[in-house]
């Protein structure tokens, strides 16, 4: 009897959705098994952490108030009055940070295995855009508690945007909602963080995931040309998926542990007329840029140091995003040392400056 109901239920949907195709598709999907297979999991982990963000973000939205006089207090309320409010906020912040880390690992592993090469250029570009957007999420979200650190981080960050020649000034005003960082800035960042950026991100994520499904997993360049008999694979469904889920469970535990053991602090409410506190630092994923700006002298030739720094970083970002188009050797299926050296340089540079930033 019970079974019949289930069958009816299933049939009703099956007639409309035709599960057959999906099952067929999933059954045909294989994941290559080789010494670099571990990197295949980081995309999924990033996705999982993003899902956590969406869920906890929506939950925070129920109590958060995005205005100058209420933002700080509303978070205080979430953390002290709302049941498990401290946990939800802490999870939101921690998973944001871990998501950045996972995204960086995912990006670098794709870079080093050259998974960006034809026909996956669009996947790479959407991925890079999502990485930039994720930084934007981090930056805009950082201001929302309206505490001292956030206030100055936003001042510095938006001022950096403002020094870009020509478009800088209008962009600064657009970001700040005026000339200074005020409640207007908070309202804007709130809007970006919960509406504009999620909308764009969802579209990019959709394209990214559909392409991954259509094109399957990329194989590293040396491995690709091996005879089929020497290649090992694993069915995506259920073998790989189960492993994916296992990793997700591990990540969930890490997030929970961090959130409980190191609850995210709220700090002191922002006072626009107080000096910047000593020891002020940006979020770690901006640290290497922040640190670079410290080292660049005030003037180089005829330019302000920071203008040069920002132009250099923009150029580097552009170059990195467009790597599938200028890395000709990989396109021809040849190995390129240069790409490796460049990647290692970027990685070492980022790690070194981040460490230096924290040592000071």
């Amino acid at each position, binding site marked *: 009897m019970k079974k019949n109901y289930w069958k009816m239920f299933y049939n009703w949907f099956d007639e409309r959705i035709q599960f057959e195709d999906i099952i067929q598709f999933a059954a045909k999907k294989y994941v290559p098994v080789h010494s670099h297979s571990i990197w295949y999991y980081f995309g999924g982990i990033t996705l999982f952490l993003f899902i956590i963000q969406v869920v906890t973000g929506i939950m925070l939205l129920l109590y958060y108030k995005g205005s100058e006089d209420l933002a700080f207090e509303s978070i205080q309320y979430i953390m002290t009055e709302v049941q498990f409010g401290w946990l939800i906020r802490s999870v939101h912040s921690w998973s944001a940070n871990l998501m950045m880390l996972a995204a960086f690992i995912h990006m670098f592993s794709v870079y080093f295995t050259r998974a960006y090469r034809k026909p996956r250029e669009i996947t790479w570009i959407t991925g890079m855009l999502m990485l930039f957007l994720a930084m934007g999420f981090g930056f805009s979200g950082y201001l929302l508690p309206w505490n001292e650190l956030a206030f*100055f981080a936003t*001042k*510095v960050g*938006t*001022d*950096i945007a403002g020094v870009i020649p020509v478009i800088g000034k*209008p962009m600064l*005003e*657009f970001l*700040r*909602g*005026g*000339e*200074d960082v*005020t409640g*207007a800035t908070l309202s804007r960042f709130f809007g970006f963080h919960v509406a504009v950026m999620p909308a764009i991100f969802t579209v990019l994520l959709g394209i990214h995931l559909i392409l991954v499904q259509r094109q399957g997993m990329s194989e590293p360049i040396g491995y690709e040309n091996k005879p089929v008999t020497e290649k090992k694979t694993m069915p995506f469904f259920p073998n790989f998926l189960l492993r994916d889920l296992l990793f997700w469970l591990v990540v969930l535990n890490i997030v929970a542990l961090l959130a409980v053991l190191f609850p995210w602090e709220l700090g002191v409410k922002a006072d*626009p*007329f*107080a*000096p*910047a*506190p*000593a*020891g*002020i630092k940006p979020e770690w994923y901006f640290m290497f840029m*922040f640190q670079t*700006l*410290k080292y*660049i*002298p*005030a*003037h180089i030739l005829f330019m*302000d*140091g*920071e203008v040069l720094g920002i132009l250099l970083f923009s150029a580097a970002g552009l170059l990195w995003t467009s790597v599938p188009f200028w890395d000709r050797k990989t396109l021809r299926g040849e190995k390129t040392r240069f790409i490796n050296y460049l990647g290692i340089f970027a990685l070492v540079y980022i790690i070194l400056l981040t460490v230096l930033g924290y040592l000071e």
Partner: protein
Amino acid sequence: MEVDQVKRKFLKYVLGGSLTALAAMILYPIIAYLKPPKTKSAEVSSVKIGKVNEIPNDSSIMFRFGTKPGILVKTQSGEFRAFEATCTHLDCTVQFKQDIGVIWCACHNGKFDLNGRNISGPPPRPLTPYKVIIQGEDIFVSKIL
């Protein structure tokens, strides 16, 4: 045939033109909307920030000058100096650091001497000075025009 080509071309321009106009009509208000209106806060020309003997030598106070933070330093010899407290590097708010006798920016370790000159770290320009006016016991600060 000839006529058809001409007609087609004509239609293409009319259609393309109207579409462009339509796009502009939609985009213009959107872009204009995104640009924040100028806040019309009454221009302050001077503010009173305290009394001369309330502030000890070799110390400082922060004050508001319109929408901007300002800093007033009283030197060891009892002279007053006032500046816009916004760092010329990337906009952080500076503070007086008594132990080393400089105006200091915590964000990137920028330092200014008590004349507002950028002496070390990344700030590219001196701080913007204000004029300090003492009337009896009261300290006023005003913009230098």
